[in-house]
């Protein structure tokens, strides 16, 4: 039995005008750390809300731990933890009051499951008497995670837990998730940050309500269909404008200090380099590289757009 199952789920809003989920199917196995990767509007939150029994799909079947999301919501609610994208704890209760409240709701107590949350809780315990509304973003996030864990859920749903959080705190958060995974909790997490995708065991790349790929991150990368090159020159914006004009370039987009390109046959990187030098580009450097998840995402997005 899969921990999470979506079978041909479709969800629309505004009488079918807005499609949030378009025939989505996926399975998450027990103990897996699974990522839903995609930008705002991809449909991630709608899937979370269906799985956490807060929203009914138009079509399809959703199950969590074998229970039907439409009919057996009581069973599901007792066994899952959910951290919504928007901070949803009581702002005018203190850290400890929030935690006590959520523990009591599930017939548990802080003491009973202290072990599960202690690594995270210890970091906010010094602020036990501070109101949740007065916490910093990083601390709010930790408190919300503690509250989602306090009843020892079997499946944890985290909707964009790292959005708007700085690079250092993001790293720390992912380390916490790896620890939780070791305790056997199934984790479904969403993020718009492509670099976080590789920290998941399997991911679904989502765009406009559809899943474009669902695999292990390195499998997705290995399926990148073309040879990818990184190129740079002294004047990077000048290089970009020049590349866009050239017929031998199949795709071309800025990527950090480099520009990533794929070539149309029969062009070769050596010929391109020479041509660019002739056209006045200085310090041209071109090298073959391994794609990242973001390259794959862009490639899949462009393919989907041309197919439409």
């Amino acid at each position, binding site marked *: 039995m899969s921990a999470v199952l979506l079978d041909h789920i479709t969800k629309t809003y505004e009488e079918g005008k807005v499609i949030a989920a378009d025939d989505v199917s996926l399975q998450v196995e027990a103990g897996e750390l699974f990522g839903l990767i*995609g*930008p*705002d*509007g*991809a449909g991630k939150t709608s899937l979370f809300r269906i799985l956490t029994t807060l929203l009914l799909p138009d079509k399809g079947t959703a199950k969590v731990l074998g229970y039907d999301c439409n009919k057996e919501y009581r069973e599901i609610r007792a066994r899952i933890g959910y951290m919504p994208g928007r901070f949803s704890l009581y702002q005018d209760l203190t850290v400890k009051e929030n935690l006590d409240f959520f523990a009591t709701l599930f017939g548990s107590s802080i003491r009973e499951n202290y072990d599960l949350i202690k690594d995270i809780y210890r970091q906010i315990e010094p602020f036990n008497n501070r109101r949740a509304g007065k*916490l*910093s*973003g*990083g*601390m709010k996030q930790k408190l919300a995670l503690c509250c989602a864990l306090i009843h020892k859920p079997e499946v944890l749903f985290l909707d964009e837990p790292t*959005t*708007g*959080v*700085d*690079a*250092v*705190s993001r*790293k720390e958060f992912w380390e916490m998730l790896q620890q939780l995974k070791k305790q056997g909790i199934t984790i479904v997490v969403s993020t*718009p*940050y*492509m670099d976080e995708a590789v920290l998941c065991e399997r991911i679904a790349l989502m*765009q406009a309500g559809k899943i474009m790929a669902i695999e292990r991150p390195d499998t997705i990368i290995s399926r990148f269909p073309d040879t990818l090159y990184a190129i740079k020159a002294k004047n990077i*914006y000048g290089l970009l404008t020049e590349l866009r004009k050239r017929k031998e370039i199949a795709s071309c*987009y*800025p*990527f*950090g*200090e480099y520009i990533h390109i794929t070539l149309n046959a029969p062009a070769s990187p050596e010929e391109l380099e020479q041509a660019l030098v002739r056209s006045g580009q200085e310090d041209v450097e071109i090298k073959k590289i391994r794609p990242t998840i*973001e390259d794959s*995402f*862009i490639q899949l*997005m*462009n393919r989907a757009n041309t197919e439409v």
Partner: protein
Amino acid sequence: MTDKVISCRELTKRFGDFYAVDKITFDVSKGEIFGFLGANGAGKTTAMRILCGLSFPTSGQATVAGYDVYTQQESIKKNIGYMSQKFSLYENLTVEENITFFGGVYGVPAATIKERSRQLISNLGLTNEAKKLVAGLPLGWKQKLAFSVAIFHEPKIVFLDEPTGGVDPVTRRQFWDMIYEAAANGITVFVTTHYMDEAEYCNRVTIMVDGKVEALDTPGNLKQQFNASSMDEVFYQLARRATRSAD
């Protein structure tokens, strides 16, 4: 000296005994893309609010577009554009109405608004959407429109506070094309971001830690200085030193 559009000298903002911004000093030149990075709580927002004329500093000096942050806040506001991830246009006004409204707020003459608005809508490829409510546009388009509106009155500087948060990777890059274009037209771009690859697109990058400017240079020089292969590493090395955990 005239090409310095932002100039800060030991700019400080204190709340009680907490130094949100602690003696920051830097200049930004005309047409520069200036990246302003820092962990949550480093003081970015406070510094930006001062530079936008929304908050008074406690001490130090700063001028923005040639105007003093203590005495000429209103002139600053007229000469800058501002856009954040959260800032949305009026969802229940149309594309055209939003442009007209914000153009009017910034005192652009009606005839100019009309002409520039038509051009802008066609440049953005929104001709068919011009009379539709902004609420119905996809997020990426909204952000592109919001940026265009922020520079509609041709400000000297545009402040962008995490403009690409949550946007898909293709649109994120199109957005940066618009930033490059604005900079090439002489608009200074002051931008914050959590995407470290975007730091590489900036001419120079500042990294704030605990209210202070801990690093300021071109991305290339910073990587050399910190012996790092990416800006992500540079940022991590610096931000990890922070002792402040506030937001």
